[in-house]
């Protein structure tokens, strides 16, 4: 059990996190004004997209304790609906974007009600199977590549993509910040700790798991919509690939699952390190990344966030 530090330290601690975040957001807002380098903007775009994706996974896995290995399905549904409405039906992007998030929620509810009967590892395998079934179906139904229409291509600009991803990342983190401060979260956390005990104390476990699922799938769907907005052309089954789930899982665990900062730190670390490795060692970068990840899991079971707080406690003790 961690004992509470004396009051002044605690108050300072309470505000450093949000303060650091606000400074980071302010910095991110002005980056496109400071630089024209497309690689920097693209890298940051990916960081934001992965923060949103990882944090959305964390909402269900970290807070409600449900290891969902079918997250790519929500990402994919969001991408598919947004892309189709936007490029084929000429719906304004903002509406198509929200519709993508909504479609992901509807899909999540449809599969969530039956699959939440499964516990633990069976839930993980069941959701993985569900997502794979959907991926194969989509690749059968939509084998043709989707490309932006000529007009959208002519006016393609990286900046709105950057700000969309930034805004989405901020919103997702905000929800993850507010959620533990609500009454709803008490039930969700109770379900995570012990489902039977929660049920026995009058918590409707299914309803609370579904609430976490709705939030998780909504932001995953919006992340998919951001993907659909960003890419000029791709095969429609690509956002359904299991790699989107695995990347979100890896990023969240590297940072620290069940914490607010974990997915932020993890996603940033994930994208930046992967990018550096791809430049430095090129061919074997995935292998080195895999090894690095295994080391984090074995050495720092709580992720980077826990390693940081442990290091800080150590410092405090020596002082």
């Amino acid at each position, binding site marked *: 059990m961690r004992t509470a530090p004396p009051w002044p330290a605690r108050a300072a601690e309470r505000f450093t996190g949000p303060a650091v975040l606000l400074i980071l957001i302010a910095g991110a807002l002005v980056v496109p004004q400071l630089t024209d380098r497309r690689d920097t903007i693209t890298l940051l775009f990916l960081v934001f997209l992965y923060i949103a994706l990882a944090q959305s996974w964390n909402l269900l896995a970290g807070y409600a304790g449900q290891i969902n290995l079918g997250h790519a399905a929500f990402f994919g549904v969001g991408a598919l609906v947004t892309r189709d409405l936007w490029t084929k039906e000429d719906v304004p992007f903002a509406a198509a974007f929200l519709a993508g998030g909504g479609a992901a929620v509807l899909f999540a509810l449809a599969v969530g009600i039956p699959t939440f009967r499964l516990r633990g590892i069976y839930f993980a395998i069941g959701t993985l*199977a569900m997502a794979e*079934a959907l991926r194969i179906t989509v690749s059968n139904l939509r084998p043709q590549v989707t490309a932006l229409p000529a007009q959208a291509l002519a006016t393609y600009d990286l900046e709105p993509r950057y700000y969309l991803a930034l805004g989405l990342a901020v919103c997702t983190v905000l929800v993850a910040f507010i959620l533990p401060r609500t009454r709803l979260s008490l039930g969700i956390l109770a379900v995570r700790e012990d489902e039977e005990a929660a049920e026995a104390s009058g918590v409707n476990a299914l309803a609370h798991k579904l609430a976490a699922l709705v939030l998780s799938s909504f932001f995953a769907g919006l992340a998919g919509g951001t993907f659909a907005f960003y890419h000029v052309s791709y095969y429609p089954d690509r956002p359904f690939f299991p790699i989107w789930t695995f990347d979100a899982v890896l990023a969240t665990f590297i940072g620290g699952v069940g914490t607010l900062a974990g997915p932020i730190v993890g996603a940033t670390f994930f994208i930046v390190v992967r990018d550096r490795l791809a430049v430095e060692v090129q061919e074997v970068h995935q292998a080195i990344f895999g090894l690095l990840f295994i080391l984090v899991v074995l050495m720092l079971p709580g992720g980077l966030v826990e390693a940081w707080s442990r290091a800080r406690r150590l410092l405090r003790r020596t002082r």
Partner: protein
Amino acid sequence: MNLEPIFQNLVYGLFVGGLYGMAAVGLSLVFGVLKVLNVSHGELLMLGGYVSFTLFDAYGVDPFLSIAIAAPLLFLVGLGLHGGLFRWVMRLHEEAKIKNSLLIGFGLALVLENLALRVWTADERAITTGYSGEGVTLAGIVFPYTRMSGLVVAFMAVMLLHLFLTRTYAGRAIRATSEDWEAASLMGINVQRTYVVAFAIGTALAGVAGTLVSLGYTIAPSIGLAWTLKALVVVVLAGLGSIFGAFAAGILLGEAEATSIYVFGASYREVVGLVLFIIVLLLRPQGLFGRRVR
């Protein structure tokens, strides 16, 4: 109505199903005994396939003979992987164990796939022997030699595993540990050593399955996840701790996929298997051949 194609399809379903069963048996053993989920099982299978492919390609070793090399080699790989990685999660409590083993499996899958990509390139490989494509025809239905032998080898491997688990001390120790490791430990069984042996055997079985995959199917660095998923589906369909059950469930899945081709078309074969799996999971969580625990 011409029934020949239907029966031909069922025969192929049997062969494919035997392979599914073979891929699942190793995973089932590891999951049942160590209570860890090794999601890099498909990558280990891929590795076994490449061992056989390389032996055939470079030295002309018959793939059925190369099983005698691939299985011990993968056994050693299993020893290394357990000692270097999975051993460290064994002392965690159940939930953290499954979660961490899942994550290590992800990392390992990434490493193995990438290394295979460097060593063997992304090309799809398959072994074509002198007798590939030949077979016997009975009542208009073809039984290719390679696939028939594949099924026989798979069945023999499962038989051997069964005999090992029921007739030897080490095998009984494995079964005792899978039922209750604390009780087994109190009875003087070296539980840690049992874990190592079970994991290495599971890896060796993946290697055998890989050899069979390289015969008549294709081996590529990226096939791992698909086979892991197949094996997972079969393991859950069968229910835990049932070796023959896993084999039978594999054949059932193969037949279900083969039959579904007639109804939904070949491109939905995999989807039918996965949907079937989800339905079984929901209606009979203990699996088709498993016993209810609680």
